[in-house]
């Protein structure tokens, strides 16, 4: 079922919000297209994991958060970072190990963090941020900030025991945290049903945590759910657990090119052709007369130009000086 059939009629007073959702998704796609290109052309050190296909998840959720709310992200973290308000320039600089990157080049793609916008960081340990997000929720509660935290993780992280320990405590202590499980059907090269016994959501239900499942390709559905849960978490009704059904378009990482041994080309083509979160939302915007195809096309071009300019900037930017290598091991004072 396409989005335009399932969504309620557009509300004209929300036009700016709709366009922002669209724009944020388009930004993530443009960022990833450029990151992939940087890898393929040998300009990016190391490997990176593309978020393309999953944009509606990060955008739908992060648009429901304030700047001060916290998120923790994953190895597939560019989308969360953009959605939480990061700038292309600092992000590309980080991916290239340049001094002006968000982490002064020390973190790279898998550790990108944006403190000012409440992104506590990507994480190269699967499930590694579950404790951090829950701890941020504990701090918000104790400090009375009204803050909410969202822990993004993949289906693969359901294998990690840490997650169950912290969900138990979050439930016992009624912490304002939302566990956002992005089920993109694979953990690396293995299907989710070969890694997780039983129902995914049942895990959280066992702790008495309210759980939801949502089409992670439908940005409005994700956003509507997130707005509701965030508001309730602020009132002390958390924690919550959400399974978001989604799909990654690229390989597990940019180097994972020949992947037919674990998933078919037909399956990939089907998701791209029929369930693309940006295309479908764009169609709906047009059908609901929120935007014209020309306007969306223009928006896409603007975003692409912005990304390209940031890449050029980052390519020319300097590396950190050698004396930064042993800086930041300990807090200075």
């Amino acid at each position, binding site marked *: 079922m396409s989005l335009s059939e399932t969504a309620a009629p557009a509300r004209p007073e929300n036009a700016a919000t709709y366009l922002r959702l669209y724009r944020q998704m388009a930004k993530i796609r443009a960022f990833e297209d450029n990151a992939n290109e940087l890898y393929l052309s040998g300009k990016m050190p*190391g490997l990176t994991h593309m978020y393309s296909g999953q944009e509606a998840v990060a955008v739908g959720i992060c648009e429901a958060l304030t700047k001060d709310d916290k998120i923790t992200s994953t190895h597939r973290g560019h989308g969360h970072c953009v959605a939480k308000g990061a700038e292309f320039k600092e992000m590309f600089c980080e991916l290239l190990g340049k001094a002006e990157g968000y982490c*002064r*080049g*020390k973190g790279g793609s898998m*550790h990108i963090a944006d403190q000012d916008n409440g992104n506590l960081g990507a994480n*190269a340990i699967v499930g590694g941020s579950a404790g951090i997000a829950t701890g941020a929720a504990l701090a918000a509660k104790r400090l009375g900030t009204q803050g909410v935290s969202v822990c993004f993780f993949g289906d693969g992280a359901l294998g990690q025991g840490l997650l169950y320990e912290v969900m138990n405590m979050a439930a016992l202590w009624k912490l304002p945290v939302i566990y956002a499980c992005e089920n993109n059907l694979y*953990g*690396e090269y293995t299907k989710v049903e070969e890694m997780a016994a039983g129902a995914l959501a049942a895990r959280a239900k066992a702790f008495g945590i309210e759980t939801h499942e949502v089409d992670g390709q439908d940005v409005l559905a994700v956003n509507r759910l997130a707005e509701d849960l965030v508001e309730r978490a602020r009132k002390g009704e958390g924690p919550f657990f959400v399974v978001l059904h989604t799909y990654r378009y690229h390989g597990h990482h940019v180097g994972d090119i020949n992947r037919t041994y674990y998933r078919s080309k037909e399956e990939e083509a089907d998701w791209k052709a029929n369930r693309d979160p940006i295309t479908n939302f764009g169609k709906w915007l047009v059908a609901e007369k929120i935007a014209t195809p020309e306007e969306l096309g223009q928006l896409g071009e603007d975003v692409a130009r912005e990304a390209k300019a940031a890449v050029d900037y980052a390519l020319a930017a300097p590396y950190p000086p050698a004396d*930064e*290598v042993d800086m930041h091991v300990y807090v200075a004072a």
Partner: protein
Amino acid sequence: MREITLSKAVNEAIAEEMRRDPTIILMGEDVAEAGTPFKVLSGLVEEFGPERILDTPISEPGFTGIAVGAAMTGMRPIVDLMFGDFLFLVMDQLCNQAAKTHYMSGGKLSVPMVLRTNMGATRRSAAQHSQSLHALVAHIPGLKVAMPSSAYEAKGLLKTAIRDNNPVVIFEDKLMYQDKAGVPEEEYLIPFGEAKVLREGRDITFVATSSMRQVAEKAAETLSAEGIEAEIIDPRTIVPLDEATILASVRKTGRAIVVDEGHQSFGVTAEIAARIAEKAFYYLDAPVGRMGAMDVPVPFSPALEDLTVPTPERLAERARATLRGEPVHAA
């Protein structure tokens, strides 16, 4: 002799042992069809089937613990830990359970398992995928620790590890998987606790582990052209450690630098240097030198990462300074 990659050598060692002993099973993430992200285990599931090559969920403490229990009750499991950095997740199972079981049971129980993992920086993989953590496990009595420095060592040490009745942790340098070396067709084992003299020399001893062998060999070539002859010792296993070979070399050369990719502080370089200082002090003409990885988390930026590991240039310079009798400053 034919030359094969380190990756192939590991694959052969496991396949040969699994053919010989049906109690050997292998567990880890994406070890079956995918053959691991490094493609080291390709083909094994086709030969041995999914009952013996077990794809696990992303549950490192869980499958390591399962290996411990299976090892205590008749199996010989090989655990594939995708990155050495994930050792921090499995430390309880490895160090509190596997390492101590034989001792705590008064010798009645044993844990014949192998945990294969990797080490090595400069792959631009940042702080959680680049660490060399062998010193951490070497610190725990009850665990043996092997560090192959080439395809030849990788095969011979792994076969020995699989036959050992103790828990063994084996660290492969992930940057060396495609490096080739001569590996005989015929079966061979490399005994634990036997260092190898890779190069003879009269002036200075380099004790070099794993890929630091390559650093030492390059430095030795440069130095040789200048008339300085370095001897290179590869300990091959750091637990047990072949002290005798190291001490004999130092007694001959009177000088030593220990090179290892773990962090320099509280690590392998410190341990080996201390043993030399304790047991060959009166033969020394200079303080024992150490070169480890810089005491910083591994940075992502290539501009910074390359500064954190020992290089042939820095080792050669350090050797020259040692021979000139200059005081040594911490690296």
